[in-house]
């Protein structure tokens, strides 16, 4: 069993080392502003279908959300233009190094949370919490049996706390 776990660790280490080499220097203001511009434009396009208005009044249910989206659009454009001008003038712009390994790790954690959510439908809160807890301990490469016992006990305690003390009917 120990050999099997060690071989898994070795495989993960090798894959991690390969992924760690893949790095990107992302111009965060440019990418971030484009993201918000896209969100604002899509939402503005959806406004007529998502906010129906039957009045001729100037001030309607659309006024405030549209104003907010326009602010997002305006300031994102300013942010984008600022960095584009800096690039043209060959000045430094704000960049951030994004490592593929970190993003893959984040995706794995997110995937575990999604699995937790899906399991809630079928096996209920306590059992899916136990499965999730064990997966997370595996992710953190924890090999201590006591930690697994603590996590399982915590899942049961949280379940009981919500169900019997706070009277929440958990799935």
């Amino acid at each position, binding site marked *: 069993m120990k050999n099997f776990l060690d071989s898994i660790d070795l495989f993960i280490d090798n894959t991690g080392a390969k992924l760690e080499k893949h790095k990107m220097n992302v111009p965060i203001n440019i990418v971030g502003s484009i*993201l918000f511009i896209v969100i604002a434009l899509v939402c503005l396009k959806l406004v007529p279908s998502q906010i129906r208005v039957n009045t001729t009044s100037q001030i309607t249910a659309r006024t405030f*959300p549209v104003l907010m989206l326009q602010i997002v659009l305006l300031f994102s454009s300013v942010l984008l233009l600022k960095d584009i001008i800096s690039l043209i003038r060959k000045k430094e712009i704000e960049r951030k190094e994004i490592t593929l390994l970190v993003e893959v790790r984040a995706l794995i954690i997110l995937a575990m949370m999604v699995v937790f959510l899906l399991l809630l439908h079928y096996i209920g809160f306590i059992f899916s919490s136990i499965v999730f807890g064990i997966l*997370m301990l595996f992710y953190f490469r924890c090999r201590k049996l006591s930690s697994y016992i603590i996590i399982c006990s915590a899942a049961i305690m949280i379940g009981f706390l919500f169900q019997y003390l*706070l009277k*929440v009917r958990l799935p």
Partner: protein
Amino acid sequence: MDLFLQGSALLFNVPNFLYMNLGLFLGVIFGAIPGLTVILCIVLFLPFTYTLGAVESFMFLLGIYCAGSYGGSISAILIKTPGTPHAAATMLDGYPLTKQGKSMKALKMALIASTFGGIFSAIVLLFFAPQVAKFAQMMGTPEYFLVCAFGLTIIAGVSGNNLIKGIIAGAFGLFISTIGIDAMSGGTRFIFNNINLYSGIALVISLIGLFALSEVLAKSEKVVVDTKVNTEDLNKENAKFTQEEKKSVRRPMILSAIIGVIIGIIPGTGASMASFFSYDRARSMSKHPEMFGKGSLEGISACETANNAVTGATLIPLLTMGIPGDGSVAIMLGALMINGLTPGPNLFVEHGPIMYAIMIGLIFVNIFMFLQGKILTKWFAKVISVPVYLLTPIIVMFCFAGAFSVNSSLFDIKVTLVFAVIAYIMSKFGFSTIPVLLGLVLGTLTEENFRRSLVLSDGKWDIFVSSPICIAFLSLIIITLVLIINSQVKNSRKKGENNE
């Protein structure tokens, strides 16, 4: 006086003190463990307040908020890792004392100073808040809209390192707050025919995603380091203060309490600024400035007094005008709203006894923080050693159970996950999530006052410059923006010079 007595009567109930102590206990733990934050603690336990009354909820949350401030100093002193950002200044002198074998003395000083700062600010709150509330009652809808805009501007400006990004995040939060049924027209907005979105996105659900689950995703970036604290040394140490030590800390404590209160009243400034500013003042006034950074009790007393003196002061703009001074307080504003208390100028008129109960309660929060600290410090010191790999899955379990408990719906957990991803992406691109939080908290109030003002003026925008209070707040917004832009330009110039 009547309100004071009614408030006291509301406060002096066993459950209030039980929840207060529970909050304090949790607050110290979350403050002490590096990687866990006070905001995270408040968000995780916010669903628990659903079944509680307004005073009980607030005592619980205030317990977390105040004790978190003190808890941060424990890890700063013992392992040179501040549990909270504002304990960074405490670390400068706390850790050298630990190296000299005087950690218990440093912890004791931090506790005494935190309690003093907290009680001082609670008394200031008790005397000043009703006066500010009287002024706030003169405000109408346009004035109140500008107050909200002022709160949003200042937080957007100071919570990140870029004002434009702060404004984008704030406006994004305000937009999200409009999802669901529009209270004024009864129509739906951005619900995509999904019945679960009819009542909008509950604040707790978005907060769990933005501040708790996103932190779990961020664990992919951080190296998990186990910390061990030798608590046996704490038992052996003689932590009694000498007369000279007692005398030396009096002046910095009083001065830092005043500094903390002044900084705390200004929204968006925060405890970090107060503790570093006080530390600097204490050093310049000290008879032994050379000891600062090498284990000065004066240094610890100044930082800890100041960062806890902020706690009561931030409640002044919150309770009187509905302006939250920082992220934690913004969540507490949400807790007020959950209990049907609409923040704003009328809070003291409509719920005077509750407000007084909260303000008097803050004094007791600090007294019990002292008692818990005195009895449990050695135990709290052990808590720092709890490994992150054990805490992370437990946090997620709490988040899922908490999100589900709001409407007994799995859909809410999905929404929480979406918010976690949004927060993660935003942090990658350097956007702070605090302005989003403020937008979500203040969204309904801001929109309501904005639309009512424009309806009153037949769509004319000059209503926002129609009164002296409006003009005063507009001027404040402009001055704030100019100051923020100025400081950011200076910072970027400095960076440029350093790079060259």
